[in-house]
């Protein structure tokens, strides 16, 4: 038995050592750095950093740019999250219908944006959104919509990023929803039909409750992913116009790696972590309370 134990550690050692050294230690270090004034002068000599308590966090709460980034990121998560989940569920239900032929091909088509490189796709969309030459405004022209300066107008830039994010991501959750739908026993729907239920009642009273665990999972991973918004604004708008698309991660990146205010940047990273943690907790609570 003793040899078993040591072989278990032999198998675990490489992965756990790597995760400990390059994940757990950095997390703890980031936490400590967030209480220091680590800046460009500390970069050459770490001992130049001084402990300053909560000052980074207190400064953040008075930093209008940070509030703007927070507001933008919440705008993105709160609109793009439910929207993309709704599109995913709709697509999954259509593809789960018995009427549909060639399900595999449709599933594959809707899924393709998920696997493609975000940076490349953001560049493509940047040109699609071009106010004069972009194909989106051209198409919208056919239904009488005047050209919109998607990425140049402060009020349209975030909706434009949201639209792209929904297009890019809905296929992923669609696949998970299809798996969830296939696990709902057919006899439930048959019984409902016997009882005279219509399509909406079946959806509300069978599909939604039976999908609840899937929906919880999907909501949590989508929320975690969307809070980390970075590449889209970095490539498409650089956070503009008027900082209206600046995201938390982008602000963290700028402070930490452009201005080398690493203490400040670490504090931003921890606030992001705290928000994601809280968001996950709330979703679990909501799920629990709706079960009763």
């Amino acid at each position, binding site marked *: 038995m003793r040899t*078993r*134990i040591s072989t*278990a*550690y032999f*198998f*675990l050692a490489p*992965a*756990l050592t*790597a995760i400990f050294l*390059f*994940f757990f230690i*950095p*997390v703890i*270090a*980031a936490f400590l750095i967030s209480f220091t004034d680590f800046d460009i002068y500390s970069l050459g000599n*770490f001992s130049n950093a001084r402990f300053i308590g909560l000052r980074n966090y207190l400064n953040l709460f008075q930093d209008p740019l940070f509030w703007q980034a927070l507001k933008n990121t919440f705008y993105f998560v709160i609109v793009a999250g439910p929207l993309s989940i709704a599109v995913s569920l709709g697509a999954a239900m*259509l*593809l789960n*219908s018995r*009427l*549909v*032929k060639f399900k595999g091909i449709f599933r*594959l*088509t*809707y899924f*393709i*944006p998920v*696997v*493609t*490189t*975000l*940076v*490349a796709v953001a*560049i*493509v969309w940047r*040109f*699609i959104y*071009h106010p004069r*030459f972009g*194909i989106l405004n*051209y198409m919208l022209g056919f239904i009488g919509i005047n050209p919109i300066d998607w990425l140049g107008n402060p009020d349209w830039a975030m909706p434009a990023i949201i639209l792209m994010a929904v*297009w890019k991501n809905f296929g*992923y959750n669609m*696949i*998970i929803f299809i*798996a969830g739908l296939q696990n709902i026993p057919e006899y439930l729907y048959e019984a409902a039909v016997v009882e005279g239920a219509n399509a909406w009642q079946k959806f509300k009273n069978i599909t939604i409750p039976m999908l609840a665990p899937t929906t919880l*999972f999907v909501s949590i991973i989508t929320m975690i992913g969307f809070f*980390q918004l*970075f*590449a889209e604004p*970095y490539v498409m708008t650089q956070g503009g116009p008027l900082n209206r698309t600046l995201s938390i*991660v982008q602000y963290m*990146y700028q402070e*930490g*790696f452009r201005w080398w205010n690493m203490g400040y940047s*670490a504090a931003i*990273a921890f606030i*992001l972590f705290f928000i*994601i943690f809280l968001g*996950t907790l709330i979703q679990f609570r909501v799920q629990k309370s709706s079960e009763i």
Partner: protein
Amino acid sequence: MIKKIYLHIFLIVSGFITLAPFIWMISASFMGDGHASVYPPRFLPDVFTLEQYHHLFLRLNVARNFFNSLFLAVTVTLISLFFNSMAGYAFAKYRFRGKNQIFNLLLSSMIIPAQVTMLPLFLMLKSIGFINTYFAIIIPGLANIFGIFLIRQYALSIPDSLIEAARIDGASDFMIYRTIILPLCLPILITLAIFTFMGTWNDFLWPLIALTDDSMYTLPVALANLMGEHTKDPELMMAGSVITIIPVLVVFLALQKYYIKGIMMSGVKG
């Protein structure tokens, strides 16, 4: 019947809208300079040309970035597959002190966003001179919790009797891992390999931080950098996007069965 036709028309139109950005991307990448900046927009090149690709490979040396991306994605995939599969196997089939505590700690730390680790990781790698080298990308990718979790879930279903039988035949623990566990886990290993390959290939923020030289950039970083100088050259940028997207698309289309199954597994189990 009418309903069925409408449904299919809707699905086909949605499919076309989903693919439209890619169709335009490929088409514009074969246009000459300025030909994609016209009104009304062109959906097909009026004159088919490879000049954008020539520009990228001959003058901008994108081949180097392509190689960086490919080398890093393959290396990270191979190493992490090895490390993750050993750990996943140990969590599934060995009993040892602290097993559940360690496993639960790993699982719950999956909620920590990677951005938290990036500042200290940068300082660590900088102090040992690894910033702007391949090591800067490989080291944080050596192992990952999601991969360990995925393999553990799969390895749990391997019957203990198989392992016991091999042990009675005198096979060493590593032999068992190599000749029984790995072959039986092949489907999940392929799934994880695709996830890791694509994750590394598509990754942006960390390579942007850790690689500081044009010649070390991966494709997404090189592309984002190029965008800064070529905002008025959609044709060139589309060719760059095609080069970046095509490899992941090919890997995905070739192995989509495994990829889709992996997502379904993580969803149902979660």
